[in-house]
């Protein structure tokens, strides 16, 4: 479960994220949509506690990310924009290292690493150096490190970047499974950002549209496309609204 309340992030004069609040329950897959520079990555960094919010609070699985960082962070699996990989390490030992950082008990280390590799289809590459892998496989290792400790919450910044269509479908399949029953049957909470509308349609149950740091839309996917309009229409309507409104005003004047 993720709870964000009034999140803002200011860089000097720029308000990168402006008063964003939302809630995501177990089993939900929430898609962050928005044009480049809308504040998707910054919002995710605020959710994971990598960046401190200028204002607002984040609770992960009920724990405040700054007041109980240990508990909150243990409950997060995070794939940053660039997968955090050590090129000289082998896939398996890298995942083992991440699992140790995330407090997976010693006895369960081996199983946790095996399971993460199996789920992301990395089993045969376990002894390969990460630096030698193709971009798609590196992305998979990035996803594997987010999964390895079976966190309650998964925060994935553009998980399907660099994957070919088949890999993309596999990853979507995996994310769907995780949301349904990933964690002891309880289902994981998944937040992912993307600008692939097809990805949202394929796996998300809810869409949060960000534009210029603000949340402009937060609706279940089913409601969005109910009246027959495509997601693309919704996306363009909301992200172009402001320039159009400005134009209309200019014409009116």
């Amino acid at each position, binding site marked *: 479960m993720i709870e964000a309340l009034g999140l803002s992030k200011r860089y000097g004069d720029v308000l990168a994220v402006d008063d964003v609040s939302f809630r995501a329950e177990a089993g939900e897959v929430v898609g962050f949509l928005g044009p480049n520079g809308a504040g998707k990555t910054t919002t995710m960094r605020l959710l994971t506690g990598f960046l401190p919010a200028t204002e607002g609070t984040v609770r992960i699985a009920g724990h405040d990310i700054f007041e109980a960082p240990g*508990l909150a962070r*243990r409950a997060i699996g995070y794939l940053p924009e660039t997968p955090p990989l*050590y090129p000289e390490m082998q896939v398996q030992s890298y995942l083992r290292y991440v699992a140790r950082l995330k*407090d997976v008990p010693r006895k369960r280390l081996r199983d946790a690493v095996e399971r993460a590799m199996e789920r992301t289809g990395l089993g045969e590459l376990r002894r390969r150096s990460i630096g030698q892998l193709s971009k798609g496989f590196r992305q998979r290792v990035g996803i594997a490190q987010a999964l390895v400790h079976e966190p309650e919450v998964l925060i994935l910044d553009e998980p399907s970047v660099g994957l070919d269509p088949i890999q993309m479908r596999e990853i979507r399949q995996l994310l769907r499974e995780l949301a349904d029953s990933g964690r002891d049957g309880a289902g994981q909470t998944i937040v992912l950002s993307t600008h692939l509308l097809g990805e949202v349609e394929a796996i998300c149950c809810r869409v949060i549209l960000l534009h210029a740091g603000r949340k402009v839309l937060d609706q279940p996917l089913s409601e969005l496309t109910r009246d027959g309009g495509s997601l693309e229409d919704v996306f363009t309507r909301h992200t172009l609204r402001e320039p159009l409104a400005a134009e209309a005003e200019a014409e009116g004047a």
Partner: protein
Amino acid sequence: MRHIPAIAGRELRAWFVSPVAWVVLVLFALLSGFFFLMQVRLFQEVLSYYQQIQQLEALRSVTLNNFLLFGYYQTIWLVLLFLTPALTMGLFTSEKINGTQELLLTSPITFWELVLGKYLAAVAMVTLLLLLLALQTATLFVFGNPEFWQTAAGLLGLWLVGLGYAAVGCFASSITKSPLIAFFLCFSILLLLFLLGQIASIGMAATAGAPAAHWLTDALRWLSSDRHFEALLRGLLDTRSITYFVFLIAFFLVLTRGVVESARWR
């Protein structure tokens, strides 16, 4: 503190997988071997010179410990001055280049675990270098009779100096993204610490007679590392010198932790 072994272990493995550790070890072995031979030759020349001119008083003061080993350890100090920055420059910069600090700072580890884990890896490498040196020194016991405790104390002193330099290296690596800048920054700090004593002497001469400047020159003198490590290398385990290096280590590790924490506020 339970994450420290994982972090230190990863760092050490990274050094040995990449050529860094091997380059440093080979370079150290070659340089120290070379300087050792030079020092042995010099020692013999000085001995025979004093014998020729019948300076028995001076001859007595030229011992294996006071002359050969002290000179040798001084040159090793010079090697450490270059190798420690090379060793530590990647500690934090590599995390920033790989984007892995995003993994570290969102994991349930503390800043102290991160800094101490990295530092411990550097300590292990410095210790390895000093073990090589101890091996070289040990050959002297086969062919001569140096004072055991004085020799051991000298090695221990050099080890302490290495640990202090590693802490400075940690700090330099934490404040920049570029390994090259980290190297030169660390090197500059080490050099500055070494030269503080000289600066203090110049200041002393310039302000001769002004009592107000005394505490400043005294402070600079204390801060300068040369006197402290000279005492240590001679095999004098002076508590003031030990305190100095312990203070240096603590100071730079605290600074490093501060820098790592502040990185997320930028």
